[in-house]
């Protein structure tokens, strides 16, 4: 049996980690953006699924992955709009709204997929993104194949992390978003619209989370299957907290989850005698340990989850 520490094994584990992390990263970025603006985003799971269905739908109709990407993001933004209208305008409890969206998307995508794809749903092979190598860079041992032999969406993910980070911490709009999550009345008195800022963030978050679903469909399995988000949205929520509502922190948290998930698959292989349940709980065990031990007490944005009404004090 091959050693767990050979160069080959390490490269494979890291590549798998990255692939398992990508949907989580997109969703966690969405969570960061939305919660920074003061809106709880339990609906990440639903938005991933909406994005996955949209991606499959677009790619199926136009026979082109880029159309899939666009349609997927549109579907995610639609799911985001529901959260924005109910949670921001009408002040419905954001957690309840989020759960409602998750249930709704689970049902509607299953229903629509049976209409659109019918019986061929699980045998279909949709057009998707192919991995391509950066000449030169991809031949560096370990780092090369892991970082420079991926497909477009992985690079897009890194760009998005950078973009959200720069947006939040280096632009006046980002300052406004962070402020609206901490103290919306201060933002309001400075003449900015709390509602518009939150709408923008929640809908953009819908598009971002949907990219996670697009990755599942367009880069990983090239078809839509019901409930294919399989709880990734909830893991992303944990990553938001573990990453301290910071895009780079969330990236690291997702990579950590992805890494331990990949590692447990590998460990199951190498240690058939150890009960597999032990390895399966590894990613969750690590996240609990990380939450308790490494990062201290989390401090969420002060106004998160609270409906803002100008007259109310």
């Amino acid at each position, binding site marked *: *049996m*091959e050693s767990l520490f050979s160069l080959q094994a390490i490269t*494979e584990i890291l590549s*798998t980690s990255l*692939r*398992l992390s990508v*949907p989580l990263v997109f969703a966690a970025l969405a969570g960061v953006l939305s919660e920074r603006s003061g809106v709880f985003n*339990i609906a990440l799971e639903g938005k991933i699924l909406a994005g996955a269905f949209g991606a499959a739908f677009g790619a199926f109709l136009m026979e082109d992955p880029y159309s899939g990407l666009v349609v997927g993001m549109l579907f995610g933004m639609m799911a985001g709009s529901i959260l924005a209208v109910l949670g921001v305008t009408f002040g419905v409890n954001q957690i309840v709204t989020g*759960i409602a969206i*998750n*249930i709704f998307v*689970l*049902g509607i995508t*299953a229903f629509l*997929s*049976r209409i659109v794809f019918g*019986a061929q*749903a*699980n*045998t279909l092979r949709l057009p998707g993104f192919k991995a391509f190598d950066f000449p030169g860079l991809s031949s560096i041992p370990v780092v090369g194949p892991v970082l420079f032999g991926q497909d477009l969406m992985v690079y897009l993910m890194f760009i998005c992390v950078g973009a959200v980070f720069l947006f939040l911490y280096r632009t006046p709009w980002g300052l406004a978003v962070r402020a609206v999550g901490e103290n919306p009345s201060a933002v309001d008195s400075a003449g900015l619209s709390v509602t518009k800022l939150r709408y923008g963030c929640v809908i953009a978050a819908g598009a971002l989370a949907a990219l996670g679903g697009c990755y*599942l469909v367009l880069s*990983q*399995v*090239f*078809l839509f*299957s*019901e*409930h*294919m988000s*399989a*709880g990734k949205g*909830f893991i992303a929520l944990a990553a938001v907290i573990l990453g301290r509502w910071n895009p780079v922190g969330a990236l690291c948290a997702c990579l950590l989850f992805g890494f331990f*998930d*990949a590692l447990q*698959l*590998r460990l*199951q*292989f190498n240690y*058939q005698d150890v009960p*597999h*349940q032990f390895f*399966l709980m590894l990613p969750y065990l690590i996240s609990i340990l990380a939450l308790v031990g490494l990062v201290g007490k989390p401090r969420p944005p002060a106004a998160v989850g609270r409906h803002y009404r100008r007259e109310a004090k």
Partner: protein
Amino acid sequence: MIISRRDLLITTAAATGVGLLGRSAVAADFRAAAVLPGSITDQAFNQVVYEGLIAARERLGIEVVFSEKVKQADQVSAMSDYARRGYNLVIGAGGEFTAAADRVAKQFPEVLVAVLNGAPTEGVATVNYNNPQFGYILGYIGGKMSKTGKAGMVCGQEIKAFVDIADGFKKGWAKAGAAGDVTLTYTNDWDDVAKAKEATLNLINQGADVVVPYLDNGIVGVVQAAEERGVWVSGLITDLGKSSPKANLASTVLDFAAATASAIELAKKGELAREDYKFAMGSDAGYMGTINDAVPDALKAEVAEIVDQMRAGTFKL
């Protein structure tokens, strides 16, 4: 808590919806209900059971209703809901329902509770296959055809049916003279296609050139990985030779549709006892599917002979 509440809501909604529909459509004395863990379009277990339910409904003219996508935490509530509403037969589709069925059977002694693929349990009718036989056949063919001598099996959770299949597979694999090991991997999710694919790629990277999925929706992830890497895949439940003829080495068909339908028929006649039923390899409900053309005729003949022995009950593992 969030997950289980959401699922409970779906379950209840689905149960009521389907229940109402079924009730208005057919009026009959005998009523059967089934609780399914996955979606009825998964091209695997759930879909097949669903087809069996529909077949039973049409053939017997009785009311048959079902709830799909019922999660572990909601199994007992979904099953006892049917029992409370006076269904004569409540079926849990899948071995993971065994514990729930046990509780429901004790709570509602007048209701007949059956589990497909379930571990034999007192007071519950379990409808099973002679699982090691099915695993053995696939293991034997795989072992003869493998170049690396290594095989990998991917499953959702550790359930008795799969463990039995895996045991049979390992015996067949060794009997065929393959040098390497058979490795089992659990993804902890029957539907997660992406994870099933990664798990399979991992097995292939470790040298496995025959992979066997035992999953719901996740099955497509395994098949895709096998197709991409050019290794063999063997299906246990549905005939993969129909959907991916190139990668399919050999598939057995566990025709849960036939098994489910005949269980319901027996129950209607009042003949389904609270005991363990086992369908053999080569019976109406479980048989050999497509074998790839790359398999030499001599091996095919050998397999046919083993299947005959299994059908006759003379085969010893």
